[in-house]
């Protein structure tokens, strides 16, 4: 991040209902404040709504997503979920176990486990054995790869791995799905299919969906798009 940051731009929050996730004047830096990634960013997203965030590489998109998931804590400002500030890491862990799903850019699957076992991982300690397996199989069927259940990641194509990652994120029926570059490293047909899948799932499940991406095809499908640049957030298409 450079130090010549553009003036902060604040996205207008949705009017109603109360936001599911809200960032209030959030700043984030690394290396003891030497590297400023986000500067007083505010953002709110209502339940069931979609949001696409674009921006150049290194602009802090993934950091922003991580803050929305509670994977990292802001150095300033606060993050609220369902209109309440999330107090600590344990509370964030509970949210990620029940209400927030994450799709990772590079799949982040456990190589020694099969597709269905990878999905099961998200439900350990919450859903008992056989019910867990059945629910994991249902999630795989929902993303269209029921026949891949017994295969390990190395035996799956990129698109199939992505779908396993989405199935895992959906395992506990989240109300917020965060997807980090969900179409990266996929050919155009597979990327388009993944885009359709995400939008279909968002519609069917009425869950809020946030994607960060460079993919014009994916970004173009969102009514609400924001651009992250120089530590600030503003409407897409505005430099």
């Amino acid at each position, binding site marked *: 991040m450079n130090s010549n940051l553009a003036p902060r731009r604040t996205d207008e929050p949705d009017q109603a209902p109360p936001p599911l996730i809200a960032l209030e004047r959030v700043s984030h830096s690394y290396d003891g404040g030497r590297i400023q990634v986000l500067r007083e960013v505010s953002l709110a997203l209502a339940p069931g709504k979609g949001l696409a965030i674009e921006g150049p590489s290194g602009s802090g998109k*993934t*950091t922003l*997503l*991580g803050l929305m*998931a*509670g*994977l*990292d804590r802001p150095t300033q400002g606060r993050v609220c979920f369902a209109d309440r500030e999330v107090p600590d890491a*344990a509370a964030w*862990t*509970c949210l*990620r*176990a*029940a209400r927030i799903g*994450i799709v*990772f*850019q*590079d799949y*982040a699957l*456990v190589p*020694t*486990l099969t597709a269905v*076992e990878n999905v*099961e*991982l*998200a439900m*350990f*300690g919450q859903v008992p*054995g056989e019910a867990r*397996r059945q629910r994991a199989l249902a999630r795989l069927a929902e993303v269209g790869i029921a026949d891949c259940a017994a295969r390990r990641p190395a035996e799956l194509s990129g698109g199939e791995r992505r779908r396993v990652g989405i199935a*895992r*994120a959906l395992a*506990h029926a989240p109300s917020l799905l965060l997807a*980090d570059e969900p179409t990266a490293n996929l050919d155009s047909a597979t990327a388009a299919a993944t885009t359709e899948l995400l939008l279909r799932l968002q519609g069917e499940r009425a869950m809020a969906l946030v994607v960060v991406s460079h993919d014009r095809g994916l970004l173009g499908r969102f009514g609400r798009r924001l651009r992250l640049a120089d530590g600030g957030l503003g409407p897409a298409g505005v430099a």
Partner: protein
Amino acid sequence: MSWLGLLVRNLWRRPGRSLFTLLGVAIALASFIALTGLSHGLGQAARASLDERGIHLLVIRRGSVEFFSAILPQSLGERIAAIPGVVAVSSELSNLLPVGEDGHALVAGWPADGFQWRGLRLLRGRLPEPGEHGVVLGEALAEALNAEVGGTLELNLESFPVLGIAGFGAALNRGMAMLPLPQMQRLIGRDGQVTLFHLQVEQPGDRAAEEAVRTAILALRRDLAVVTSDEVLKGNRSIAMLNSLSSALALAALVLAGFSILNTLAMAVEERTREIGVLAAIGWSRGRILRLVLGEGALLAALGGLLGALLGEGALAALNAMVLQGGTQAVGGPGVIAAALGYGVLVGLLGALWPAWRATRISPAAAMRRG
């Protein structure tokens, strides 16, 4: 997929490393079983040896550094016999002596009228007549030396006719040679001296009665100790040293096993930093991540413990067959194996503690970093 299945999958990622660690734990626990079994066996053998010969109490020299070097005057026996409650007293002079060409055996000298002779179950031959030059052998010793009644046996470089072969239940007794006391005293140059006195009392097992006898004997001389068969090895410093050495070696083996598990799991956690971050990112609590790594350590140790129990039992059998030759019996059994498994799992958990703690410190933000 069960929790156990997940632990197994994680360990099986590096099968070679896990198997070598498991083997290390197994060898450590096998050593523990063998050493503990040997130590227990020694105690049990001594106890069984005395009980079988109808000995209720022993009078020994207090604080003797080494069992066989203890010296008591033979004449003390008459004063002990006069104490109320004492039915019979018989002295014994014993030592480990060279037998045959290159062996060693426990050799005991008993007086001609000692009650120990009366309790002997002769398989072949006869007992020595008063003043007769000859030896009676325990059956295991006779078998090991290929000795038979009518033959001769070299004891401490002196030839003795083999007069009889005696059968015993206790392993220690089966490997023993018995002589008339005067011959034993002459053989090792300790005329008028004995190692200890064997006592039979009127009310064996009655603590109050035994205590009265004990008090009366201790009043005779201040340097005596009166012990039961259970207590006989407790005050002996050689045995205490052997037990301490066994315990120290067993402990060292367990500590090494713990470090082996620590090393393996620390490497595994290091390799799986991103993956553990992903688990945290999908909602795994620190407690569950801690249990995952501890579980891997405990599983590794438990499997190592099971293999170690098998190896340990094998080691005990080998010790009994090849080294101890029936003189004593290393004892394993469910108690020792359960202890080994218990220690094994404990060692696994302790070894896994630091890697597990490290795993809980991995930030879920690590999940967002590209693999």
